[in-house]
């Protein structure tokens, strides 16, 4: 039986019983999925159960570092209201783990022995921090038992640990020069902590950024008070008599001491539940273009734990790197797509089920007989559009550093050599001003951005991201993008030229020459010029200019139209 007909069976049942949807994981992606699905909860079409391992309901993980440095509160980053979900009939189970999935019986077994039957299981288990091999640190990701003074800054509990150190302006050591490590480092430094980043490579973001950009970035980071220990390999932890972290030991011997070690060595999808259930996994849980797990039409995966790669080896959409990006954007898109596709299917299933028009359609028809021109304004749903197929965006993700004192963005492949001859239409434009901390690199193929680096040029960086994402052809004069951050971009429209045809008063359209002429015929105040020429009678913004012209006139009388300013006598 194909998955499509199986799906329809489920919806036929819906006529008598709601669709039982169990979501495992209650992070930002699960929250988004549930948000979009909410109308189906409210209508009773879906019976939802969400299981979260953390005791907090979904919160915005992107902002955990902000909580950790005390910029904002845990409550401010909440993404979901469990009480509201419960009021809609959902079961929200927090602080409880899932032991295993029983695919044969279509149920999820919780740590406390509860069995949750499902018609559809959505795995949104996310990712966990990578734990580096360091002497003194238990490498088992499933049973972390870390010395005090070590955290991964992944959840709110980690944020609380960081908070205590930043509050007393302690020493924070961050292991890892990736984007999350840098964001934590800058935030902590800005809030007064002393921060050291220990990382591989010659400069931070070495996996993404190019050489020039990396060097400029490093120097800007240093100027922001972040100490960089580059090209370092950490091998172990030093700890106090009480077992608390005191320093990080590097392979060539030196110690980097601190009050807290933040591990920022990347994340890895949480796959054990899927693996334990025998679902195929690669870097993530493998799902096809309906976000359905391979070979199980009742199980779906979204977010950091999901890898969109279908079973067809010849599928062009799945030909590149399909590993989860670890960024939130794609996860949210998957969540929205999946929830919308559930809703669309439920709607069509319900109509097929009872063989009658739904009440909504009847209402619409009733309206139509009176108002034939009332058009339904329903948003296009994935089911009705040609997008009944989830395809991961072909574009590589954009890394925009989340920081207050520093603007940096990297996207795509930034490595191309500007001086090399490229056969494939690739061209590289480059701007570097290391002294000012600014750097921009645009790598295009046939005029379309393939990669970019932008440091210290906020407008240019943001515009380049728009161009990168839209796939637009760049202007042939690439420098026009750099000038967005120039002083002239903020200049006023008025001109101070002494050309008599220059318009001084835009509102009334009065030129410098006309005002000079008014002065010639005796107007000696702004009010008189206004009465004579209407200059200055709109917004009044040119009054100073008029005054200046009058003053100039009486200092250096201008001869106009054959007249001598003060008469011929």
């Amino acid at each position: 039986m194909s998955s499509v007909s199986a799906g329809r069976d489920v919806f036929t049942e819906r006529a008598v019983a709601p669709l039982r949807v169990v979501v495992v994981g209650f992070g930002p992606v699960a929250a988004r999925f549930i948000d979009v699905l909410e109308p189906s909860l409210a209508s009773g079409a879906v019976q939802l159960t969400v299981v979260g391992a953390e005791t907090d309901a979904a919160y915005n993980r992107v902002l955990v570092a902000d909580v950790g440095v005390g910029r904002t509160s845990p409550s401010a980053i909440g993404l979901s209201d469990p009480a509201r979900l419960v009021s809609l009939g959902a079961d929200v189970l927090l602080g409880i783990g899932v032991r295993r999935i029983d695919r044969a019986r279509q149920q999820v077994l919780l740590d406390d022995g509860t069995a949750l039957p499902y018609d559809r299981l959505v795995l949104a288990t996310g990712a966990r921090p990578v734990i580096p091999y360091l002497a003194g640190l238990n490498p088992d990701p499933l049973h972390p038992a870390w010395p005090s003074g070590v955290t991964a800054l992944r959840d709110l509990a980690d944020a609380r640990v960081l908070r205590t150190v930043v509050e007393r302006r302690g020493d924070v050591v961050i292991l890892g020069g990736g984007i999350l490590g840098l964001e934590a480092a800058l935030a902590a430094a800005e809030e007064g902590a002393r921060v050291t980043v220990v990382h591989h490579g010659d400069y931070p973001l070495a996996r993404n950024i190019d050489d020039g950009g990396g060097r400029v970035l490093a120097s800007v980071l240093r100027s922001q008070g972040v100490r960089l220990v580059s090209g370092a390999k950490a091998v172990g932890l030093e700890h106090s008599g009480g077992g608390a972290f005191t320093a990080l030991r590097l392979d060539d011997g030196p110690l980097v001491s601190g009050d807290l070690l933040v591990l920022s060595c990347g994340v890895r999808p949480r796959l054990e539940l899927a693996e334990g259930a025998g679902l195929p996994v690669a870097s993530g849980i493998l799902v096809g273009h309906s976000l359905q797990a391979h070979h199980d039409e009742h199980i779906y995966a979204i977010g950091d734990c999901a890898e969109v790669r279908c079973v067809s080896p010849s599928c062009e959409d799945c030909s590149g790197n399909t590993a989860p990006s670890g960024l939130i954007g794609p996860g949210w898109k998957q969540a929205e797509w999946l929830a919308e596709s559930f809703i669309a299917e439920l709607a069509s299933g319900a109509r097929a089920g009872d063989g009658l028009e739904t009440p909504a359609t009847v209402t619409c028809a009733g309206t139509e007989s009176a108002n034939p021109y009332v058009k339904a304004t329903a948003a296009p749903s994935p089911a009705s559009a040609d997008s009944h197929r989830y395809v991961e965006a072909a574009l590589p993700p954009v890394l925009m550093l989340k920081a207050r004192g520093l603007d940096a963005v990297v996207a795509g492949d930034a490595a191309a050599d500007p001086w090399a001859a490229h056969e494939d239409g690739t061209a590289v434009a480059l701007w570097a001003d290391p002294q000012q901390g600014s750097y921009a690199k645009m790598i295009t193929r046939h005029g379309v951005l393939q990669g970019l680096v932008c440091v210290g040029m906020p407008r240019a960086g943001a515009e380049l991201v728009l161009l990168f994402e839209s796939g637009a052809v760049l202007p042939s004069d690439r420098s026009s993008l750099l000038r967005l951050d120039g002083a002239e971009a903020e200049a006023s429209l008025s001109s101070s030229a002494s050309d008599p045809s220059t318009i001084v008063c835009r509102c009334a359209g009065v030129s410098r020459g006309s005002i000079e002429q008014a002065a010639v015929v005796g107007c000696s105040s702004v009010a008189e010029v206004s009465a004579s020429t209407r200059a200055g009678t709109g917004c009044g913004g040119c009054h100073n200019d008029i005054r200046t012209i009058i003053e100039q006139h009486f200092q250096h009388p201008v001869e106009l139209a054959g007249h001598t300013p003060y008469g011929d006598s």
Partner: protein
Amino acid sequence: MTLTVSGAGSASGSHSVEVRGRDFPTNKGGLCRKGWTSAELLKHPDRVLEPLLKNDDGEHRPISWDRALRLIRDRVLSTRERYGADAVGVFGGGGLTNEKAYLLGKFARLALGTSRIDYNGRFCMSSAAAAGNRAFGLDRGLPFPLADLGSARTILMLGSNTADTMPPFVQHLQGARDAGGLIVVDPRRSATAALTSEGRGRHLQPSPKTDLALLLGITHVVIMDGLVSESYVRERTSGYDAIARSVNTWWPERVAAVTGVPANLIRETAHRLAEPGGTYILTGRGVEQHANGTDTATAAINLALLLGLPGTTGSGYGTLTGQGNGQGGREHGQKADQLPGYRKITDPAARKHVAGVWGVPESSIPGPGLPAVELLASLGQPGGVRCLFVHGANVAVSAPNASSVLAGLRSLDFLVVCDFFLSETAAEADLVLPVLQWAEEEGTMTNLEGRILRRRAAVAPPPGARSELWIMARLAELLEAPSSFPDDPEAVFTELRAASAGGLADYSGVDYAMLDKELLAGEVLAGEVLDGEFPDGGAAAYWPYPAGSGGTPRLFLDRFAHADGRAVLHPVAPPSSSVSASVAASDGMLTLATGRLLEHYQSGTQTRRVDGLLATSSEQVLQIHPVTAAGLGIMDGAGVEVSNERGTVLTVAGLSTAVRPDTVFLSFHFAGAGSANVLTSSETDPVSGMPEFKTTRVSVRVRRPARSEVVGV
């Protein structure tokens, strides 16, 4: 403004009139060029001076008023008999006086018996109005006197180019500019955006259609950085938690990647708005004229509410009303879903009250009709409108998807247009009725602050022209309409007061005598936009002004207009598709925004007839970035063709770095080959019915025909 008439009393009309700016709180003596030149329209040779009937040969020929009115009666009756009452429609305008707007609504419902009435304010204020009603329970453009802005340290203006569209207004920004706190959000570096230069503020230049994301980003910072006015939110609003959750996902860097506005500029803006010293947030058509305009205006209101601005002294939220009577015109029954006093036509209590004032059974008042775009789409269609009255609007130029509107007008059985010029819409009419201009009639207007102003007749109208009140009164008689249709403006206003009593926009305590007292003794006044002074101590009349009260200059100081007194924070988000880079620019298409110019007003019917205005803006110009133009081989002044699947505009290019490279700009003031609205679509906001005017996809290419073919006007 003030009209001085010399040689007044001369019945021959040989008198001359002069316009001057009046020192009034809103304009502080200033006038725009349109104001200065407005008297030229009174004696303009193009004026229609007699009713004109289109003959079979397509030519308009004069007929008598008597014949014209009887013809209308016959056509209304035959249409009604054949197709039902809803086959007769009315399209009004935001430039009509309160009296005309009120009587037009009554005329449609009682004399014509139709539900099919709406007006051009749907293209103008509908999104802000819907958002204001949703959040505050009431929509008055500025819920505070305009002059209050002068004391603010910070003013955030979103999508409003008042330096071109309402120059005297700019004077009120001076305080914020002096404090370095004028923040302008506009994809173009407009004249208003340029007011932020030299340390006077900041210009945020988002990519088109991303205003909502930008507002969510600013709101995100307000919440995350603890800038929320907590006691205000607790005591005066509802819905905080849902807002906090919904903006949580819009951190500044994410917003920067969507809008092109740097993350730290977003942070700075949020912090600046939260500084003490008075902060106002103002929206204009730039953010409202979108298919999600209501949500964008709502996002601006949410931001204002979280900062604790609305309903306090010295801070607030407002929307800048566009047309001369854009405020009053949306209060008294020209809207499809509305009865006088800003009442809902679906509210049984409202219907009962108005039926009582009108002396008719409640059941004789039709239900809600169709919003403007749908009304126009129904023209000539089966089940649609077959006979249409147009008052104070030029839909052939101003409505979106103008070619299809024109086709709709041409498919009507009968089109009656009331205008003083042969506008592009009037040119299509079977019957054109010449009406009065601003300086020739008595009445009231309600300005952008909700202040009711008296308009006084200063000059005698041409003999053949008639007031629309008179026309409606005569037609009501011929159609044997129930109730009464006075043709005296004061009598109509008296009835309006009663009909509005107890409604949101309650005018019951205002009368002509009181308004007249506000005028300078001996001076004759006429107001298109701004008016009046009260040297003799007369009070300024801000609605709601129930009988026995003193009016309401500042709304919401104690409570908002919802039953629980609280403002509603309503979570909004951009449609998920617009957040991703779904707009593929790789096809070479550009985004067209439409808007206004300093020299022109609305569809240009009036301003395109003033030589002084044409001197600096005589034809349509496509504003395009030099870099974009270079890529397309377009030189400054070159003839260009702007087109999409709906139509083509032939115009000339004006190169300007004020527009983003991905965007081009056309004004909507021109007709014919330069008519921007042949390109815009009929897509509308699901809440307000506002069309999408600002993000039309177009392609631009150079054209090489002879210069003489370039038609702009």
